[in-house]
């Protein structure tokens, strides 16, 4: 079975380490905040100017002046700080954020990512994604492995305008966890019940399949 959105988020959260500063993108990455493993403290960065983002507020505590990068109302965690957009991206660009998780339309085995624009169809803008992928060393891209028409999103070369070049080393899909090394996808883990063959069939870029590919624990 392919992973649900919640299971993808759960697997992402297993990458959290105690003391990490983490930036979670809009969508599935944001859900990972609900699965922080016990005994681990992470500080969530929101690029509109929060370090130490808390959960959604109770109705009575909603504050129009306190939102996250997805424009949702949020709260502050203990130890939080607030700063300007310039300071926020200084910490991102300066490599101070330990882990960045974001979504994408396509990733290729050269580590390129496309996530902000479908020419002629969808122009939303890159927001902070280009800065995040350029500034972070430790990035996990979460996405579905293939489109609803069965077209692979893990390509030998991205077809859409790039968000970043050569910056992605790890991809988590609804079928598999893969690393990108030397121009190849390396299959590290597969979703419970999903076969290596199924993953291979839906991976258009060059795929290396190690002898043992464990199932994820989610």
């Amino acid at each position: 079975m392919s992973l649900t959105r919640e299971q993808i988020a759960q697997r992402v959260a297993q990458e959290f380490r105690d003391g990490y500063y983490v930036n979670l993108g809009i969508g599935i990455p944001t859900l990972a905040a609900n699965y922080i493993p016990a005994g681990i403290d992470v500080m969530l960065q929101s690029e509109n100017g929060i370090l130490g983002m808390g959960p959604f507020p109770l109705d009575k505590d909603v504050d129009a002046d306190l939102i996250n990068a997805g424009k949702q109302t949020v709260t502050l965690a203990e130890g939080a700080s607030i700063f300007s957009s310039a300071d926020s991206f200084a910490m991102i660009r300066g490599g101070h954020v330990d882990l960045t998780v974001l979504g994408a339309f396509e990733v290729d085995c050269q580590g390129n990512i496309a996530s902000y624009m479908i020419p002629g169809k969808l122009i939303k803008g890159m927001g902070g994604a280009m800065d995040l992928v350029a500034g972070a060393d430790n990035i996990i891209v979460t996405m579905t492995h293939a489109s609803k028409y069965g077209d692979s999103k893990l390509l030998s070369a991205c077809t859409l305008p790039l968000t970043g070049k050569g910056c992605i080393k790890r991809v988590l899909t609804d079928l598999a966890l893969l690393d990108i090394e030397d121009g190849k996808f390396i299959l590290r883990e597969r979703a419970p019940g999903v076969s290596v063959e199924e993953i291979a069939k839906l991976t258009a870029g060059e795929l290396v399949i190690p002898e043992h590919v464990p199932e994820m624990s989610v």
Partner: protein
Amino acid sequence: MAGFNKLVTTYAEALAGLEDDMTLIAGGFGLCGIPENLIKEIKRKGTKGLTVISNNCGTDEYGLGILLKDRQIKKMIASYVGENALFEAQLMNGELEVDLTPQGTLAEKMRAGGAGIPAFYTATGYGTLVGEGKEVREFNGRHYILEEALQGDFSIAKAWKADPHGNLVFRKTARNFNPMAITAGKIAVVEVEELVGEGELDPDQIHLPGIYVNRLIVGEFEKNIEQRTVRSAP
């Protein structure tokens, strides 16, 4: 004090001198911390042909989005325009020129514009459409592109509290782009929720010194929320 008193009493006075075809930098992130009333005044004035530099362009109904309806904006420099159907429509049919700029680069372009730095190198956007036509240099084995600073004829911004000198304190994430937007405007106009007396702000706790502020006005704010998200009580 007299020479340092930035306070004006009407929105017409606050934006006196803003003319067609000028460049305007606006603070705010989504609808959070936007200079609501200054935007409404620009709509009322009917200033046209504006180049607007701001992270977003509001929604169809509020914020900078209201200036799109009357075609007051000629060009938009922004990082994210996804909330705005009118924006997308005007962009697609070629009525509106748009320069999509990564959010961190946009913040730094404003900061540089206010700090007298004409350009800077950043890895953001290298190898993408954003980097096309821009100078590339390699530092320590990494590629960077040259990005130029931005300045505005006017900047409009919103803060929480001010004293008459224009010393400013922002509140929570309503700070966002506001400090940099203010520094990058030749004439910086700031609207605030509350004016306090001279000497009432702790100098150690001022977020932006009044030297950057030219005009100050006290306003009433609607503070619309784009995505009201709540959790239920346990």
